[in-house]
């Protein structure tokens, strides 16, 4: 923060002519920077000995470490979370069936990934408390065409793992978890990674582990792991023969090294994330218009994201709030907006009934700046702005109307 002066007047807000509260952008991306010497320490020996290879020793080591972390037997690294999801959907979908059940309030490219593998997204609603899919929201979407169920973990909480596993067994339909936003979480004390048939995580720089770009799939099923691996490598088996359709989803060695270096810092990072999240909760405790969605502290969590719900008593629309924050160089984001079922697509999608909770929740949640670039002091400054907005809401709203008129 450059300007530690609190906003006193409406004109102190950057949108209305004041100096931005921050001199550089604070975003919702994690951008964790591992110890560079540790990172170079992984890359250098492999590089200097000319031992870079496809699925080389660093990728192997990373897969082993991630499997340990998630307490699974197998981990298959990928060049991105997107490609990991694509490969997993392709391998897991029941052949001859066409639909994939997924939430509508989720990652904006989720339906497109399904389209790449030739599946029709069947959108389901979510639970208002967890913001995740549950057995109750998924079951109405299951029919004779269902090829796969996506258990997507929402940001902060988890989806209904027990209920979805029950459905998966009852209907004999495979269940794939998207755990991109739930990295390093546990459920009933067991690490995420081995629920359903498989789970997918991301190593994008904005996520918990920064691998530049990357992703991975965890599973306890050996045959599935083999199929995921061959599909990620053009369909090549270990002996060089071709097993079937594949593509290039290989993670490269430098990205693997980056992730390995981040893993060394993971416990410490989670503590830093937790302190940031706690600071938001403390500083915003008096702001009745905003509720910081809590993490379940009885389980393991990564604490990276800061999700807030905008209540009735918040004086501004979410859109205006975000516009004001952006002017202060705070890149707060709406939570998964717009919902996927409201977008027009070049491919067919399906939904059963109304998605009431989805529609409501897609309008009232936002993610506040978090990650390695955000200090506790920054959070104090962000909270001051939000407190100011809560207090001066009607005046701020009036100023919005003024600039709209001019």
């Amino acid at each position, binding site marked *: 923060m450059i300007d530690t002066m609190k906003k006193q007047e409406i004109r102190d807000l950057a949108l209305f002519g004041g100096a931005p509260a921050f001199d550089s952008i604070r975003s919702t991306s994690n*951008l964790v*920077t591992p110890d*560079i010497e540790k*990172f*170079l320490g992984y*890359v*250098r020996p492999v*590089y*200097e000995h*000319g031992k*870079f290879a496809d699925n080389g020793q660093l990728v192997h080591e990373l897969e082993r470490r991630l499997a340990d972390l998630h307490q699974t037997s197998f981990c298959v690294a990928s*060049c*991105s*979370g*997107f*490609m990991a999801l694509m490969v997993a959907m392709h391998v897991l979908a029941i052949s001859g069936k066409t639909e994939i059940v997924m939430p509508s309030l989720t990652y904006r*490219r989720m339906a*497109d990934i399904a*389209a*790449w593998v*030739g599946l029709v997204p069947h959108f389901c609603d979510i639970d208002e408390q967890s913001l995740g899919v549950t057995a109750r929201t998924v079951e109405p979407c299951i029919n004779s065409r269902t090829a796969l169920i996506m258990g997507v973990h929402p940001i902060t909480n988890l989806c209904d793992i027990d209920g979805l596993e029950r459905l998966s067994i009852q209907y004999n339909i495979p269940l794939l978890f998207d755990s991109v936003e739930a990295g390093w979480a546990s459920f009933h004390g067991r690490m995420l990674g081995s629920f359903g048939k498989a789970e997918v995580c991301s190593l*994008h*720089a904005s996520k918990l582990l*920064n691998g*530049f*770009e990357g992703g991975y799939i965890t599973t306890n099923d050996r045959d599935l792991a083999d199929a995921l691996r061959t599909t990620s490598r*053009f*369909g*090549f088996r270990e002996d*060089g023969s*071709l*097993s*079937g*359709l*594949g*593509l*290039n989803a*290989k993670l*490269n*060695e*430098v*990205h693997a090294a*980056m992730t390995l270096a981040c893993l060394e810092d993971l416990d410490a990072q989670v503590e830093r994330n937790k302190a940031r999240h706690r600071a938001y909760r403390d500083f915003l405790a008096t702001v009745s218009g905003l509720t910081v969605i809590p993490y379940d502290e009885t389980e393991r969590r990564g604490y990276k994201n800061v999700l807030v719900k905008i209540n009735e008593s918040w004086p501004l629309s979410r859109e205006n709030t975000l516009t004001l924050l952006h002017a202060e160089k705070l890149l707060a984001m709406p939570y998964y907006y717009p919902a996927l079922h409201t977008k027009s697509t*070049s*491919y067919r999608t399906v939904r059963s009934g109304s998605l009431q909770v989805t529609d409501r929740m897609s309008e009232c949640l936002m993610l506040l700046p978090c990650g390695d*670039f955000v200090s506790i002091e920054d959070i104090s400054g962000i909270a001051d702005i939000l407190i100011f907005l809560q207090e001066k809401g009607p005046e701020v709203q009036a100023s919005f109307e003024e600039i709209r008129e001019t």
Partner: protein
Amino acid sequence: MKKGAGSLALFGGNPAFTRPLSIGQRNFVGWDRVEHALRGIFSRRYYTNHGPLVQELEERLAGFFGVRHVLCMTNATIGLMIAAKALGLTGKVLVPSFGFPGTVQSLTWAGLEPIFCDIDPVTHLITVASAEQGITPEVSAILGVHLWGNICHPGELARVADEKGLRLYFDAAHAFGCSCNGVPAGQFGDMEIFSFHMDNMLNSLEGGCIATNDDNLAEIIRNIRSSYGIRKSMTVSVTGNGRMSEAQAALALLSLEDFPRNRAANQERFELYQKRLSVIDGIRLVCPSSETQSNYQHVVAEIDEAAFGLSRTVLTSIIEAENVGSPLYPAGSIHHHEPYRTLYPGLQEAFHQTDKVSSRFLQLPTGKHVSGEDIQTLCDIITIAREQAGDIRALLKVKE
């Protein structure tokens, strides 16, 4: 130096190479330069999402190819998948069966059906005649492949595509820095897709790019690739993730600096192989076509079993035993492999030249890690194999 057949590693002799000699280019730059570039990324803390190095790389490559747009990609196969979607192709696409599986697979992922074409036995490229033969009303494009860096008839295929109203694009994975009658690869067809996999000329470990002169197509590709780097927001049929990271871009930029030196060294290695192998009966190197100025990133040989005295399979085992990476290019005739084998049972006997070349060719190691001495040693071994083919056949019988 090895003397008789018995000294070959296949029959218990010591391998000629103490370290494994891989086939691909593996043109790595010195560690100091890499370390400097990686430290730069950490100081900026800009890791991906169309960062400054990716932007610089795109600009430099556009200058290198002489094109209006270069779009960097995670890897070339993702580039090919995105290319097919960006072109809005439907139905069927003409493509050679001979080559790397990713080319054909990209079409399948894009919901298209490959129509395989046969190749010319000398250049290993599809022939214009075989492409013309495959055209039906359902065909929407030709996907040419500049295999082994030989540029694939850009003028004639463009004429055919124009006449029939087809799109034309090229898999240029092998053709970085090649040109055709002086025109650089990158400028042909609607677009060309390059690979920066470490086995190719330009090395970012994994990576690739699309080059095009079409402004609209470039913007569609940007919109499919990621939301970062978009200049104008457009509605596209489907999005993907083809982002290249700053680490990949850093390696590619360094490799680009070394390109002229690496290309010249490849040519020297090729000429040495040529000099040694041209005097041996039954082995022929695939040479750049008369219109191609090559990057010489591949050294590909064909074995005529009758003249050489040994089959390609036997020569391959001899070479591999000396600690050389597998000389067989992965896959070869794609229509003989799954899922295409099951999808197109009628094609199994259809492509005579493709099948003939598939059974005769092998690759020889080249790239920065291969010295002139290594090439001399390997050519000595091939000479022994040719001269003592009879003894080798006898030893193989004993071995069985």
